[in-house]
């Protein structure tokens, strides 16, 4: 079972990836960064978006499969 805060970041990542409207895409990129920064601040860790996505990729894939219609 993944930390529910990661699921929030995964949701932000997936929504950002799937968005094709230009303005919305930009806002969702900011939202993803915001959620990741919030998590890092809570845990006192420093991790870049790329590192986060790389280290959680298998969990993200599993989570994504569990999201019907996404």
């Amino acid at each position, binding site marked *: 079972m*993944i*930390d529910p*805060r*990661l699921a929030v970041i995964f949701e932000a990542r997936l929504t*950002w*990836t*799937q968005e*094709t409207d*230009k*303005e919305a*895409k*930009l806002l*969702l*990129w900011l939202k993803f960064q915001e959620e990741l920064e919030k998590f890092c601040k809570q845990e006192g*860790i420093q*991790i870049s*978006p*790329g*590192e*986060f*996505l*790389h*280290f*959680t*990729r298998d*969990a*993200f*894939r599993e989570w*994504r*499969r569990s999201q019907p219609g996404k």
Partner: protein
Amino acid sequence: MSLNPLLEPPPGASFRDLDSTLKECIARFSHPNDPLVAWKTSFDEWIDAVKNFHEAEDRHIYQNDRPDQVTWRFHRFLLHSLIGRGEHLALQLLSMTVAEEEKTRQLQFLDAFLTDLRLTVETWHKVGGQAPLNPLAKYL
């Protein structure tokens, strides 16, 4: 003919290129005093390509248990091609004589798509593979 359909040459590629060039020319012809119109047409076409890529990526990478070597390489090839085209659009935009504010705005939009693709490369195709110690392991 190859057994793997991913290795087949793309059908009618030249017609697609012509179609894309034509759309840009028509946009330029329709709005000769607005250099951004033709650029935006190319940007929209690129966004369509990115959308199609993500739909195929879902099937081949996320819903597939074990993508094979060709699938991974094809995924990387498409990512790099889309990033290359996107960066070219950025360079075209930067060389245009348009209002600075509008240029910055369009560049931010473009970068939101480009960053998404660049992070996908880092997610799945990071050089050196996965580090032995995952700093996020306790949350997974």
